[in-house]
């Protein structure tokens, strides 16, 4: 019970600490995504004239919106993982000085990253509604597409948090790995636009599943490419990936955390 309170406190602190001392404070949580979206619109819609699948009219923002949806999901994952990699070695006091549930460290990082990305999601919905001039009931399914992603991120965060203690080099490796994953995930391209064999290989990247699921729900009937809702199997797959990663990460973390105090 107390752990929930502690987690709550830690998440609050994490989130608050991002805005403490800034002139604009909380406004940044909306300004950041808004500015990013503007950049995407100008670059991809204006300069490159990129198209997301079938051309639907002359709206420059279609590509930017689709890209934005991918980036939002990717950020949830990459930030959770990147921050968690150093979260244990950065909190030696919690390891050595007090009795503390160390799982809370990566967990709180993941949760705060997710909560911070809610503003991105909100902006994404607003933007989608404006661009396509309509809402869609399928958005009600969004929580179910996001939950597996958060679970998955937390699971991977457990791994990198634990390994980051033993291999200090991991923080650099993780950076490279995440960058690689960015290109291997359908962030600024559509999975459907790839040849079949590539698509099959790419499916080994769990992020592909989450992003596809999310786009299908988000752009259901708004774009011709997303004319059907995800099948139950795809949901199941996402939950299996997310839940599995979380469970394995948790177990691994618990197995290895005994050694943290020895090497920090």
């Amino acid at each position, binding site marked *: *019970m*107390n752990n929930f*309170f*502690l987690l709550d*406190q*830690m998440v609050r*602190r994490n989130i*608050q*600490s991002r805005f*403490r*001392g800034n002139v604009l404070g909380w406004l940044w949580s909306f300004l950041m995504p808004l500015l990013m979206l503007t950049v995407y619109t100008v670059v991809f819609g204006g300069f490159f004239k990129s198209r997301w699948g079938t051309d639907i009219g002359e709206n420059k923002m279609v590509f930017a919106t689709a890209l934005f949806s991918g980036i939002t999901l990717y950020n949830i994952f990459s930030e959770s993982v990147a921050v968690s990699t150093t979260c244990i070695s950065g909190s030696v*006091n*919690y*390891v*050595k*000085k*007090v*009795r*503390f549930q160390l799982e809370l460290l990566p967990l709180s990082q993941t949760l705060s990253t997710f909560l911070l990305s809610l503003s991105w999601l909100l902006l994404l919905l607003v933007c989608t509604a404006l661009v396509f001039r309509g809402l869609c009931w399928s958005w009600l399914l969004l929580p179910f597409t996001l939950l597996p992603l958060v679970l998955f991120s937390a699971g991977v965060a457990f791994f990198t948090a634990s*390994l980051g*203690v*033993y*291999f*200090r080099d991991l923080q650099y490796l993780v950076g490279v790995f995440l960058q690689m994953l960015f290109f291997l995930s359908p962030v600024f391209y559509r999975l459907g636009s790839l040849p079949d064999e590539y698509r099959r290989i790419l499916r080994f990247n769990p992020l592909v599943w989450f992003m596809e699921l999310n786009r299908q729900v988000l752009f259901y009937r708004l774009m011709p490419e997303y004319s059907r809702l995800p099948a139950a199997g795809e949901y199941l797959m996402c939950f299996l990936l997310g839940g599995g990663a979380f469970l394995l990460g948790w177990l691994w973390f618990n*197995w*290895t955390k*005994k*050694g943290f*105090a*020895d*090497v920090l």
Partner: protein
Amino acid sequence: MSSEVIVSAQGLCKYYRIYRQPYHRLLQCLSGGRFRLFREVQAVRGCSFEVRRGECLGIIGRNGAGKSTVLQLLAGTISPTSGTLSIRGRIAALLELGSGFNPEFTGRENIFMYGAILGLSPEKIRERCQSIIDFSGIGDAVDQPVKTYSSGMAMRLAFSVVAHIDADILIIDEALAVGDVVFVQKCYAFLREFIRDHTVILVTHDVAAVRDLCDRVIWLNEGRVMESGLPAKVTDDYLAFCYEERQGASRIEPAAAPEAEEKVSSDVRGEIWKDHPEAVPKYAFFAFDENAPSFGRGGARIRDISLSDREGRRLDECLGGEQVRLVLRIDVLEEMKSPIVGFAFRNSRGENIFGDNSFELYRDRPCAMAPGEVLEAVFEFEMPRLHPGEYTLHAAVADGTQDEHVQHQWFHNALTIRSFYNGKTGVMVGIPMRRIELRKVPGDPDPLQDS
């Protein structure tokens, strides 16, 4: 005391495995014991002790003696390699005050966070928040970020939080040295109250604090219990041990001073101190260190400095108020027309506490010395009561007058004196008191009362 045993450690051992690379730890974990990637350091080897309810246990020892490891074992942040440790009740470890603080956040926010880490429920924290702030005495600053606090303020806040969690056992590591006098006294008052029906384990170098608070002390050395028992005895032995280590085996053996002989203090409290041995201001003297740094022309060399009693027996300890004789023996190498010998006791902050020199007494009848002769200077005085701590004796020999002289040798830290004194008078030097008296006297009638 027959109260229940709260903490019981039997043959506690902790061997640290030192890995050259952090990932070796992981490989070791995965290897299943097929190979060894570590060097073993035995931090704690077989400690056994018990602490009961209502007791304060002190743990002393030098750096690296294993104190912190024992504390971490007690706090549960590390697990023992072997041996058993049973703890009944909730433990609050203060291994480093305020280590859970985030400087960006306000004191109030940190109270919540720190309280949560220490296991206090949100309702309890809300309930006690005001009381925590009051105890810490930081006032309105509680709503300022902790980074704007002085270190003393942060520590006070941290201690206040700890004072408000319902722990059964409090572990304190070197924490009481912080804060101003008023707050330290508050902490002591809190601890004394707390010890009554809880348990405290205090780890410190501060021998005075140990003597003040603890009922029992264990002295750790190289991971083993060297001695355990009453504070006065154990701390004495511990200090003696420390100086012996530092100065070789040069601690002065009590020269033919029979144990049974009573030391006499001229202080009016002499009789009282007989009944309250813990209150006696005591000193331990350590041998003259002829290799201590010195400077000067070198025309005379201080060969020996000793403290003895009035009968000339060398002392290795004395009481406050006792008559002592400071003797300096000086080899004269150059002709000196009017030698001056002086000394000063200096505290650890480098302030000269007291001292004197021979100039005035000999200004009109100088004791001229020729090369090869030996000059002996004797100062007889009553040892004042000094704040607990370490003092050094500085001695010098010069030739000339007070204002114009040649410094032949000036010795820094020629001798170390350790003062043990529990009486709190708040002064640097307590001179021997001939008389202290409180009495009722018939009061003047209050003129206003009559009308």
